[in-house]
C-alpha cells in the first residue's frame, strides 16, 4: 500500500514505531544521552497515541516541542518551547520515588536474563575494548517499572550467552520486587520480552520480513519462541512523516552503520 507520497519504511522506522508503542498515555518518560531513537519514539508517541505523557528530556526540558533532532541528544535546541526545565538529578529522584514510568537504554551486549553490558569487553581491569560506560543503566534498570532496551545490530556478538560485565541488572541479578519490573528489548530484527516465570528472553514479535529462525540464528543463546509470533506492526504513514520531519538529516541511521 506504498501509496504516492508515503515514504519507504526503513528498519530505524520500525524500531522507533515499536519503541513509541511501549509508551502509554500519562506515562512519565525519560531519555538519556546518545538517544536519537528514544527522542524520536517519545516525539512520535506524544504526537499520536500518548498526547498527555510527561516528556522529560535528558537535555533538560519538559514537554518540549521537538522540531528537529541533532547528533547530540542533549542539544539544547531539543528543549524548544518546553514548559519547564527539570534536571537529570531531579528525574533520578523521581525514579527513586517510583514515579518515572519508562526509560530507554542501550546495550553493547545482552544475555537471556536481560543483563546488559555497556562497560567493557574483556577483563574490566585489562579492557580489550573500553566501552563508553553505563550512564544511568545500573541505577535505573532494576528500579524502573519499565525499561526498553534498543539494539540496532542484532547478532550473536551482542546477544551473548553471558555478558562480559553486568552493567545493567537482568532478572537473575534482581530482588524479588525488582523482578516485577518490565523489560522489553527492541532490535533491528524483532521485539523480545521476559513475560514468563523464568524471566528469560522470549520473542514477542518479528519485524516484517524477518523469520523466527533468522532471529534465533543471530542470537547467541536459545530464545523462548512461542507457537504464535506475530509480526511487529508497520509504522503508519503518520508516524513515518513525523520521523522524516524531525530527522531530515537521518541522524537516526547512524547507529545502524
Amino acid at each position, binding site marked *: 500500500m506504498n501509496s504516492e507520497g508515503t515514504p519507504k519504511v526503513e528498519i530505524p522506522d520500525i524500531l522507533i514505531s515499536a519503541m513509541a508503542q511501549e509508551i502509554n498515555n500519562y506515562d512519565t518518560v525519560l531519555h538519556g*544521552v*546518545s538517544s*536519537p531513537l528514544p527522542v524520536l519514539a517519545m516525539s512520535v508517541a506524544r504526537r499520536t497515541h500518548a498526547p498527555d505523557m510527561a516528556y522529560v528530556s535528558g*537535555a*533538560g*526540558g519538559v514537554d518540549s516541542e521537538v522540531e528537529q533532532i*541533532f*547528533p*547530540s*541528544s*542533549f*542539544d*539544547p*535546541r531539543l*528543549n524548544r518551547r518546553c514548559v519547564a*526545565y527539570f*534536571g*537529570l*538529578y531531579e528525574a*533520578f529522584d523521581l*525514579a*527513586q520515588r517510583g514515579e518515572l514510568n519508562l526509560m530507554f537504554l542501550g546495550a553493547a551486549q545482552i544475555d537471556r536474563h536481560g543483563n546488559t553490558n*555497556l*562497560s*567493557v569487553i574483556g577483563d*574490566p*581491569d*585489562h*579492557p*580489550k*575494548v*573500553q*566501552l*563508553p*560506560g*553505563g*550512564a*544511568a*543503566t*545500573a*541505577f*535505573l*534498570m*532494576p*528500579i524502573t517499572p519499565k525499561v526498553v532496551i534498543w539494539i540496532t545490530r542484532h547478532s550473536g556478538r551482542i546477544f551473548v550467552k553471558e555478558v562480559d*560485565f*553486568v*552493567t*545493567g*541488572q537482568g532478572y537473575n*541479578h*534482581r*530482588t524479588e520486587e525488582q523482578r516485577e519490573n518490565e523489560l522489553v528489548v527492541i532490535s533491528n530484527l524483532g521485539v523480545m520480552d521476559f513475560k514468563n516465570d523464568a524471566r528469560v528472553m522470549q520473542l514477542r514479535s518479528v519485524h516484517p520480513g524477518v523469520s523466527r529462525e533468522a532471529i534465533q540464528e543471530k542470537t547467541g543463546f536459545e530464545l523462548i519462541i512461542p507457537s504464535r509470533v506475530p509480526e511487529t506492526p508497520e509504522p503508519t504513514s503518520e508516524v513515518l512523516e513525523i520521523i522524516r520531519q524531525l530527522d531530515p538529516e537521518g*541522524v537516526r541511521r*547512524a*547507529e545502524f552503520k
Partner: protein
Amino acid sequence: MREVLTTLEDAAKMVKDDELVTTGGATFHRAPMEMVREIVRQGRRGLNLVDREPAIDFDLLIGGGCVSKIRAGMLAFEVFGLAPNFRQKAEAREIVVKEGACQPIIAGLRAAAMGLPSLPVKGLIGSDIMGVSEVIGGYKQVEDPFTGEKMVAVRAIEPDVAIVHAQKADKYGNVRIEGPFYEDVIKAKAAKKVIVTVEEIIPNEEFRKMPEATTIPHFLVDAVVEAPKGAYPASCFNYYDADYGHIQEYMKWANEGRFEEYLNQYVYRRGER
C-alpha cells in the same frame, strides 16, 4: 562581595597537578573548553577527572596528557562513537578508569554540596559496577536505619576544582546560567575552588534587577573569567550551537594518530596571542 575577575591564565593556575577536577555542562553543551585548552597549554599533569557525562572536554584533557584517572558515568561522543583519546589511553592503560554510573556521581557531588560524608542511592546492587576497584570515591552497601532497605551509600565527591562555563557573570562571581543547568550548581557547591568562565561580564546591577535568574551566588565562586566562545566547539545556549563538524574533525585527527596536529592548530597556536 569581593572582586574575583581575573584572566584565563591566572584562573587556570588555580588548577594544580594531581587535583580532582570536575567540569560543567554535559557532553557537547556548555563544556568549559577555553579553560580546558589553557590547562593543556600550561601542561598540567596527573589530574583526576570526575563527571556524569562529559565528552570533548575530558577527551581533550586526556589527549593533552593532563590526566591520570577518570571517573565518569559515560564518556562518549554521542552518536559519533567512542571518545578517541579516552579509548586509546584507557586501552593502553595510560589512564586509570573507574567505571561509574550517573546517579552515584551525581549523588557523590550532592553529598559534598550538602556537606555530608556520603549519600545513599537506590539501584546499583546486582551490577558489576559495585565491584570495580576503587579509583575515585566509592560505594558501600548499607541498610536504611529505619526501614532496613538495602541501599548503596556513595562517598561524597568533593572536587578540588569545579570549572563551569556560563553565559553571564559579574565581577564578584554572581553567575547566570541560561537554559539547562545540568549539575553545575551542585558542582559549584561541592567543589573547594570554583572557576567560572563566561560569555559576558555584565554589571552587578543586572543581577539586582533580576535576582531570580542568578544560578550561583558570588560567595561560592573563586574566579571569574570573560571568555567569549568559551565553550566552543560545544554549544552555549542563547549564544551558539555545537559545531558538530569540528567535533567530527577532532575525532578524525585523534583516530588517525594526528592529534598532535589538532593540538598545535587549535590549542597551542590559539594561545599565542
